[in-house]
C-alpha cells in the first residue's frame, strides 16, 4: 500500500527518487543558466558562462522588451491562440470518426491525415509561399495561422485519435439511446472525456506555433506583424550578437508557455473515464 515501506522498497524508492531529482537538476540548471545569463554582459557570458553575473543587468530584459518583444508578443499571442483553437477543434472533429467509426476507406483517410506528420515544413516553403500569395493572404496573420493549422492537424489528430480509441464504446451506445446525434455525442460525451489529451494537444500545438520560425520569417513581411521567434532571431547576426539580450528575450518568450503548462496541469485528470462501465 501507499505508505508501505519495508526495508528494500524504501531503499528502491529513495534510489529512484534520487535519480529523479538528479535529472531535475540536469534540467533546471540550464534553465537557471538561461535566466541568469540574461542578466550578464556579453563578455561575462562567454568568459565565465557558468558564473554569476557581477551585477544584475535588468537592462537586458528591458531592452529585450523594448526591441519589440512586447509588440511581437501580442502578435504571437494572437496567432498562437487562433491557430491552436482552430487546430484543436478541427483535429478533434477529424479524430472522432477515425477512432469511433468503421467505414470503407477509413485507413486511407487515416493515412492521408497522419501522412502529414511526415512532412518537413521546409519542403513546402516555396510552394506554400506561392499558394498564399495566390490566396491573397500573404503578409497577413492568416499567412501564418493557416499553414500552422494545416501542419498541426495531422499530429494533433493522431494524438486525439489514439486517446479516443480507448474510450469505452458502451458509453457511446448509451448516448445514442439517450437520443444523441453524432454531433451531440461528439460534443457532449466524447470531448469532455478527452479533456486530458485536448489539454496536452493544445499545449504541444501552442508550443510549436509559439516557437515556429521559418514560416514566420518568410510569410510575413510587415515588421508590425512579426512573431517573437523572428523578432528575436533578428537580434542575432554573424558578427555582433548581443547574446545576453537575446537570452533575456528568450526567457521572456518562454515564459508564456511555461505558464500555459502550469495552467493546463489541472486538465490532467486521472481516470476521467473511470466508473462508467462494468467489465
Amino acid at each position: 500500500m501507499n505508505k508501505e515501506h519495508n526495508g528494500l522498497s524504501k531503499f528502491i524508492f529513495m534510489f529512484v527518487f534520487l535519480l529523479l531529482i538528479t535529472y531535475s537538476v540536469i534540467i533546471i540548471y540550464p534553465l537557471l543558466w538561461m535566466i541568469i545569463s540574461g542578466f550578464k554582459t556579453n563578455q561575462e557570458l562567454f568568459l565565465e558562462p557558468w558564473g554569476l553575473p557581477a551585477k544584475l543587468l535588468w537592462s537586458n530584459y528591458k531592452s529585450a522588451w523594448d526591441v519589440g518583444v512586447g509588440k511581437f508578443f501580442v502578435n504571437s499571442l494572437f496567432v498562437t491562440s487562433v491557430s491552436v483553437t482552430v487546430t484543436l477543434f478541427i483535429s478533434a472533429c477529424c479524430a472522432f470518426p477515425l477512432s469511433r467509426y468503421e467505414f470503407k476507406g477509413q485507413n486511407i483517410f487515416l493515412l492521408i491525415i497522419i501522412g502529414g506528420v511526415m512532412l518537413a515544413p521546409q519542403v513546402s516553403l516555396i510552394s506554400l509561399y506561392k499558394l498564399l500569395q495566390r490566396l491573397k493572404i500573404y503578409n497577413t496573420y492568416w499567412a501564418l495561422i493557416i499553414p500552422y493549422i494545416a501542419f498541426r492537424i495531422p499530429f494533433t489528430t493522431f494524438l486525439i485519435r489514439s486517446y479516443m480509441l480507448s474510450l469505452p464504446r458502451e458509453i457511446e451506445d448509451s448516448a445514442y439511446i439517450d437520443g444523441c446525434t453524432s454531433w451531440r455525442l461528439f460534443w457532449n460525451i466524447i470531448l469532455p472525456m478527452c479533456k486530458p489529451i485536448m489539454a496536452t494537444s493544445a499545449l504541444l500545438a501552442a508550443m510549436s506555433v509559439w516557437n515556429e520560425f521559418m514560416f514566420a520569417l518568410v510569410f510575413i513581411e510587415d515588421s508590425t506583424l512579426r512573431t517573437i521567434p523572428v523578432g528575436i532571431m533578428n537580434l542575432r547576426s554573424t558578427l555582433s550578437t548581443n547574446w545576453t539580450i537575446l537570452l533575456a528575450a528568450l526567457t521572456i518568450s518562454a515564459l508564456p508557455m511555461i505558464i500555459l503548462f502550469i495552467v493546463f496541469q489541472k486538465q490532467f485528470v486521472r481516470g476521467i473515464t473511470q466508473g462508467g462501465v462494468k467489465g
Partner: protein
Amino acid sequence: MANISLRGVKKVYPGNVTAVRNFNLEIEDKEFIVLVGPSGCGKSTTLRMIAGLEEISEGEIYIGDVLVNNVHPKDRDIAMVFQNYALYPHMSVFDNMAFGLKLRKVPKEEITKRVKSAAEILEIEDLLDRRPKALSGGQRQRVALGRAMVREPKVFLMDEPLSNLDAKLRVQMRTEIAKLHKRLQTTFIYVTHDQTEAMTMGTRIVVMKDGDIQQIDTPQNVYDYPANTFVARFIGSPQMNITEGLVRDNDDRIEIVLSEDTIINISQEKEKLLKEKGYVDKKVLVGFRPENLHETEVDELKSHYSTINATVEVSELMGSETYLYMNKFGKQIIARVDPKSKKRSGDRVELRIHWDRFHLFDIDTEEAIK
C-alpha cells in the same frame, strides 16, 4: 403504438460467433416481455439489435410497423438499461439521468422534477452530485436504471437491471418497474436471470438457449408446460428432476417404470397421448419438480399419486424451506419439503407426487410429448 416484430433475426459476431440465430418474435404493444436463458445465450445481443446498437446480420426488425433495420438508435425512441451500466463517467449522477431529457429539450423544471422523483424511488437522492466513480456497484446500477426511468419512450429495454441489488431493494424496484409499466403503457423488454422477476413481471417469457428460442409463453405456462427438457431444467429452482422411464402397458393401463421399485401411474390424457404417439414399450424422459414431492400423507385420491422411496443423503435447511437430496434412479433427486421436516441424512423417506405433476419428454428430441 409500439408493437415490435423480429423476423428471422440473426447475429454473427466477427470471429464467426453466432450469438442469435433465426429469432422470430411478435411483441404486442404494452407487453412486458422477459428474456431468460443461460449466460451467453444471446439475450443482450437481441436487446442491442432492437436498440440499433448492433448490426443485424440477417432478418428484419419492425417497431410499430416501421422497418428499423436502418434507423438510427436515437430515432428509435428507446430507453435502455445496460448490463454494464454505461454511465457517463464525466457527468454527475444528476446529469447522467438528465442528459436524455436535455437532448429532448424537456423544460428544465420538468427535468429536475423527473430526476428528483426517480432518484427518490431509487434511493439515490443523496448521490445526485457524485460522479459514477464514487458509487458502489449497486448504486451505479440504480443510476443506470434511473436514466431509463426518467424517459418516456416507446420501448424500454432493460438488461439485468437489478442484478447488483439486494433482495429487499430488488423487490421494491421490481414493483417500481411494474408501476412504470402500468403508468406509461409502453412495451418493455426485460432480461433477467432471476426466476422471480421472470415469473412475476413478464406477460410472456422468452426462453433462449445458444441463440435459439426454446419457448415463448406466459410465465405459468412455461413453468407448467415446459416445451423441452432444457426449459424444464432452466426454469424452477432447484431444477426439475428428470429421469428415464419405460412406458409399459400393464393390463390396459399405461404406466411408467422408473426403477424396479418405482412405477408411476399417469392420468388418462397422458395415457392416451403416449399410446397415440406410439411410446408404448419405449423409453421416455420423466420430469418432476422438487416442490411437487411431498413428504406428508395425502388425503386425496391415492391413485392419483405415486410414491418414491429413497434415503436422504443430505438435507439442507434454507430457513423457509428444506431441501432433501437423495440418490435414486442412478442420479441425484431433490425434494423441496416443509421446513418442519425432521428428516436428516440417512433417514428413509416416502415421497408422494401427483400425476399431474409429471412432465414427459421424448428421449431423443427431448421435446415435451404432447
